[in-house]
């Protein structure tokens, strides 16, 4: 297992190097003029040139790439053109918010999506199953930005139950950064009002993000459960005289989880992508919002930084999924041989 993880991590470095080359090439293919844009409407030619020099934009592309890569090895992600500070500082500010939001959405997906799927699979063909199927098709089909705005109108404007956006109320002071997760930081500070507030602020954006994933996961789970229920070993288990509860716990859930885990891993990627939309709609100050601004301004170092971070998360999630297979299904082993 350890060798497998080390191998995968080495591969990761290669993957990230590839990501760097491709992102750099793609962003620089666009014939933009970030220095002109950055300098602003009234800037003079000398000011534009000075800015271009300050950010190294006046150098030939291979040189720029070389400077970026050598910086990267030293942990320097460059200076953001938009916000005029190190990209590393930007990411340190924006990333925790995204992870907090994504993790909440993942938790919602797991704790709502899986039981729903299991329930639907076991009760296949019954009216409740049909209702759930209709609902999940609806869930998959709703675009995030549309759903987000609808939830805002319902829960903020009409019901006046939930805040519309941001991580805390307008007049609340944010906690000192420990983990960057407001839910944890406010709790750690003993500021229970802010803790409550941060939880409430998570509800709408996390639900907006999670509804699609819940639908996908529960459909996947339902299909897997049905497949497992039809298999020979379940019939054998029943013949052995196991109760329904025992069968569900020991055989059905565990086996149905193998394909579902794959989809869950992919869904975490989808949630990260969905973050971009949800964060804009809910003014959630995460890397999605940061990425949108970066792309608008053709802020090369910021785009590279965001891409790198998302790639790293993707790779790590995939690794975790692969390890989860082994835990869930003893027939799978990581070194490529089939266990007996």
């Amino acid at each position, binding site marked *: 297992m350890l060798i497998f993880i080390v191998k995968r991590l080495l591969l990761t470095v290669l993957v990230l190097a590839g990501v760097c080359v491709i992102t750099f090439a793609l962003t620089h293919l*666009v*014939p*933009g*003029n970030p220095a*002109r*844009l950055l*300098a602003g*409407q*009234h*800037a*003079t*030619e000398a*000011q534009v*040139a*000075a800015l271009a020099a300050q950010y190294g934009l006046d150098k030939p592309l291979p040189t720029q790439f070389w400077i970026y890569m050598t910086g990267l090895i030293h942990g320097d992600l460059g200076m953001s053109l*938009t*916000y*005029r*500070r190190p990209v590393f500082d*930007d990411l340190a*500010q924006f990333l925790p918010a995204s992870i907090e939001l994504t993790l909440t959405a993942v938790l919602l997906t797991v704790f709502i999506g899986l039981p729903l799927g299991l329930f639907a699979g076991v009760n296949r063909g019954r009216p409740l199953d049909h209702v759930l199927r209709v609902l999940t098709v609806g869930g998959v089909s709703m675009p995030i930005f549309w759903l987000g*705005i609808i939830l*805002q*109108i319902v829960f*903020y*404007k009409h019901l*006046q*139950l*939930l*805040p*519309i*956006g*941001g*991580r805390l*109320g*307008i*007049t*609340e*002071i*944010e906690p*000192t950064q420990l983990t960057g997760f407001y839910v944890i930081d406010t709790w750690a*500070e003993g*500021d*229970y*009002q*802010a*803790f*409550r*507030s941060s939880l*409430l602020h998570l509800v709408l954006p996390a639900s907006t993000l999670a509804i699609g994933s819940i639908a996908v996961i529960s459909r996947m789970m339902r299909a897997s459960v049905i497949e497992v229920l039809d298999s020979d070993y379940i019939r054998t288990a029943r013949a052995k005289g196991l109760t329904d509860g025992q069968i569900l716990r020991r055989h059905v859930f565990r086996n149905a989880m193998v394909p579902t885990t794959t989809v869950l891993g992919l869904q975490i990627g989808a949630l990260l992508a969905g973050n971009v939309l949800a964060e*804009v709609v809910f*003014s959630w*100050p995460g890397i999605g*919002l*940061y990425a*949108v601004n970066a*792309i*608008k*301004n*053709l802020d090369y170092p910021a785009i590279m930084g965001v891409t790198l971070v998302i790639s790293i998360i993707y790779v790590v999630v995939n690794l975790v999924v692969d390890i989860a297979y082994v835990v869930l299904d003893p027939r799978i082993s990581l070194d490529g041989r089939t266990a007996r």
Partner: protein
Amino acid sequence: MGLNAGDAGLGGKQDTREEVMSALNGIAAGMPGPSRRAFLAMAAGGLALPLTGGRVVAASADTLVVASGADAVTLDPGVSFDGQSPLLWRNVYEALIDYRDDTLEFVPQLAESFDVSDDKKTYTFKIRRNVKFTDGEILDAAAVKFNIERQTKVGQGIAFALAAIESIETPDDFTVVLRLGAPSDGFLSAFASLYTVKMISPKAIRDNEKDGDHAQAWLRDNMVGTGPYAMRSYKQSQQAVLERNPDYWRGWKDDHFDRVIVKYVHEASTERLLLEQGDVDVALFLPDDVVESLDGKPGIVVTDEPSFNVYYLCFNCKNGPTADPRVRRALAQAFNYDDYINNALRGKARQAHGPIPSGFVGHAKDTPAYSFNLEKAKQLLAEAGYPNGGFKLKYTYETGYFWKRPLGEFMQANMKELGVDVEIQELSPSAWAGLLSNPDTADHCFGLVWWPTLATPYDYMWSLFHTAAQGNAGYNWGYYSNPEVDRLLDEGAAEPDEARRLDLYAKAQMLIVEDSPALFIYEKNYRLPMSDKISGFVFNGMRTETLDFYSLRRA
């Protein structure tokens, strides 16, 4: 901060639970409970209101909440030309002089008086005494000189306008004399406008200077000024919290705001809802259609003031059919100005007469404006060799500039009448700037809005129509070039006599309208939606998209 969170928690917990229960009961019973805003603050903010002395800041009469639809870029007033950051600069930092209310007349601010010599080459500022920065430093002539020098060395922001300075003298502790090599029109306004030399504590700059950066890295996140408010906390893309500077030299009365929160909101529909629900008092940087939809909503007023923002539709004057001024004049008469202004803009604008806004210094009153005349347009186009149109124009605009797409579509419909096809293309702002600032790739029509940095017509005409402002140097991205216009502008900027100067500028305006390098479409009214409880807002076109928090009150 500095308050212990735990203390606030225990004492407040029980009371607040009761508050919520009573609020809920009140609502359930249909009784007049706490205000909706209070209830919302409790439900969402975790019981903000009843707590005093806790970490939670109460949203109440003494706090102004401003929503901004776009992010500030930097807190350093010396390095940026973006439209959003000045809102913060204006309230923490001050300049030597200012504009009186909504006029272009200069009044003292940190300078208690100022004098300009007849040859317009010597500017003398008497600095106000007893003004202190929030770190306790005294504002004196040396501090002013230091700040002007920092601005020049940083080389960004307003630095270009300071290039004319030859020497800065401080004959005594509270007098600053600037000597110019040659007169420079608009020079005084470099010390008064939105982008200007703001006074920053010299000690803060010296203490935080790193590798000769003039404290740019530090000042990006920190502010030490003389202004009415001090920055308490700032988080990029999230919010800025400003609080009264207790030692402010103009003093405080009870009804000023104690605290101002600027909330950065990233989706127009969200920002609109916040204002409609009364959770924010002012909503900046909303798209035009959203602003118009807020007009007339209960509790909301939308300002309606003439501004100095002029909207142009520029042609490429170097390549293609629009290189011929006859074609441009024909197109100028095929655009239905009245229809656009009255319908698309709901009448909240006036047709522009030439490149300079009508309320601005140096606007030539008799500058003609083209009116919609399709027959004349067709005839002109035929004279230019295009009897039935038959050519194609490209119109390009950047994502996020809400007014540009409707303008392009309207033009497309109008030009069809002439047999001219218009193809519309949307680009990212950077790609758009890249395309047009490069003379080899720029062959597009495009919308452009201009507002002045300096109070001189030169600001508009040089940036948009001077030959030297092509490409990266300015915004002459239609690559218009008329040596006579260049000469009139250059002579005007260096002419100390006002009457003669304005005469030169007037001639330039006539020539530009005759050549029609652009359609001079409209001067827009400034439309800012805010709560009808807020009073004291004065709009000045030189300071668009900012507020003076000190002058605002809650009615």
